[in-house]
C-alpha cells in the first residue's frame, strides 16, 4: 500500500467527470421524457374524445 501515488487535481477531476458521464449515459432519463410526453398528449386527446 505504500506504492500509492497521489493524482493531481486535474486528473482527479477528469476521472470524476468520466465516471459521472458514464453514470449519466447508463441512466438516460431524456430517452424516457419524449415518449412520456407523447403518451401524455395521446392520453389527453383520448380523454377529450371520450
Amino acid at each position, binding site marked *: 500500500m505504500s506504492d500509492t501515488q497521489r493524482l493531481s487535481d486535474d486528473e482527479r477531476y477528469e476521472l470524476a467527470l468520466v465516471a459521472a458521464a458514464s453514470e449519466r449515459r447508463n441512466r438516460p432519463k431524456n430517452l424516457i421524457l419524449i*415518449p412520456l410526453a407523447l403518451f401524455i398528449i395521446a392520453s389527453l386527446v383520448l380523454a377529450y374524445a371520450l
Partner: protein
Amino acid sequence: MLGLRVVSLDDQATWQSPDAEPDAAPADARAGAEWLAERLNRNGKAISRLIIDTDGGVCSWVSTSDTSPEVVRALVEQPFDQEDAQGSSRFPELPGETALETLGESSAAHKGDHHNPVRAAVLAVPVVPARLLIDELDRLGIRVGEVEALWHAIAQAWDPAARSSLGGSKAERVIAETTPVTGVVVLDPAGRLVWAWSRAGEALAGGTQRLQTVRTVDAEPDRLERGATRQPIVTEDDLARLGNDWLAWSMQLGVTPTRIVVVGHPSNIDGGLDSAGIGRTLGRIRPDAPIDIVPDDDPIGTTLSQLAGREPCNQSGISELTDRPGRVHRAMYRWSAVALLLAAGAVGVFASRFLRVSDEIETQISELGRDYLGVANENNLNLATASLDLERKIEQLKKNQVDVSSLVVKPRPLLEELEALSFVLASDDLTLREITMSELSITVKVQVAETETYEALSQAILSISGSVVEWRSTVAPRGSNALECTFTGSWPSQEGEN
C-alpha cells in the same frame, strides 16, 4: 489501482497493475477488467461481491436527525464558500470522489426529531478506481453484485454472530437472543491494522492504523502483499491508539465490543507483541471481553475466502456502487421508452378512431334532424310534438292491423280421412262402388251381401279414430241378394266460414 484479488470456493488469483503511474488509472481498470473477464469465463459472468480496499478511506461520525444519503453528504462535504468550516474536517476533502455510507442501525434512512439528533457512523471511501472498474466490467458484460468496503467484509467474515445468523428463516433458533457487538482486528502484512465493529455481521464502525512491518525473506515485497514476504509489528503503542479509538467510538455509539477477534500473524521482533501479548494487552483494554486469536499469514486473503460462496448481507454495502447503473439499466430505459412509445401510439390510434366515430355520429345526427324536419313539414306536424304524434299513429295502425291468417280457410284433411277409410273398406265381404271426396262432403257407396255386414261396416266407419267427419248412412236393397249402403260424411264447420 494497485491490483485485484479473485477468490472463489475453489480458486484464488491475484492481478497486479502493470503501471504504477497515477494517470494510468483508466488503462489499469480496463486491463484489470479484461483479466477478470478472462478468469470469470470459467466460472460464469458475474461477481457476487466486489470488495474495495479502505486505503484512503475514513470512518467517522456525524450528528444528524436525518441519515438519508443526501443529508449526510450535505453535512460531510464542505461547501465551496466555507473552506474554514470545521464540521467535516474528519472526512477526506474529495468532493465527488468518495462514496458516503452510513453504517449500522443508522444505515436505514431515519428521520428523527430535529431537536434530538443521533450519532451516525459514516464511512467515506474513495471510489473512483472502483467506478472505473465497474464500468469496464459492465462493458465486458460482467454483472457485479454487492459492492462493499473492506470493513463490511471483515465484519461479515469474522463476526461469529454473522455465521450463526445465516440461514434466514430456515435457521433453527429456539429462543430469542441479543446479538453482541464483536470487534475484529485484522493485522495486514501490508503494514496496517484494520478493525471493524459488527453486530450479526453488520458493520457498525471501522478504522485503520499504520503498522510497522518486517521483511521475512530477502525477496522484493509484493505490491499486493499476501503475507509471503512481510509480517506486521504490533506494539503496545499501536494497541493503546486502538484503545483510544474504541473508547471514542463507544462514547459516540453507546456500544462497546463484548467479544474480540484478532486475525493475523504478528512478528515479535523490534519490540513487537506476539499473539499472546496482543491478547493480554487487549484484555486490559476490554477486560470482560473474550478474545479469539486467529493466526494467519494472509488475513485479507482469508477474509475474502471466508466470504466466498456466502450470500451478501442485504444491509451492508456501498449503495452508490452497488446501484451504479450499467448496461442493464440502459437497456431497461431503452425498453421502457419503446414500451411508452408503443403505448402512446396505441392510445393515439384509439383516440383518432374515437374522434372519427364521433364525427360520423354527429353527421348522422344532423341528417336525422333534417329528415325529422322534412317528415314534420310533410305531415303538418308540430315540430315540438312530431315524434310523439308519429308514434301515436304507429300505435293506431298496429291496433287496426288484421291477422290475415285467420281469413284463410284451412284445407280439409282429405288424405288422412281417405287413408283411414281404406283400412275400414279393405274387406272381402263388401264391394266398393263409389267414393267421392270434396271440400264439402264425402260419399262412399258400398255393396254388401248381408245386413250384419252393413251394420259392422257402419260401426267401423263411425268409430274411426281421429276422424273429424260426421257420418250418416242409408241402406237400400239392390237386386235380390245384395244391399247398397251409402255413407255420407260432412266436414265440421271452420272459423271464417259462413
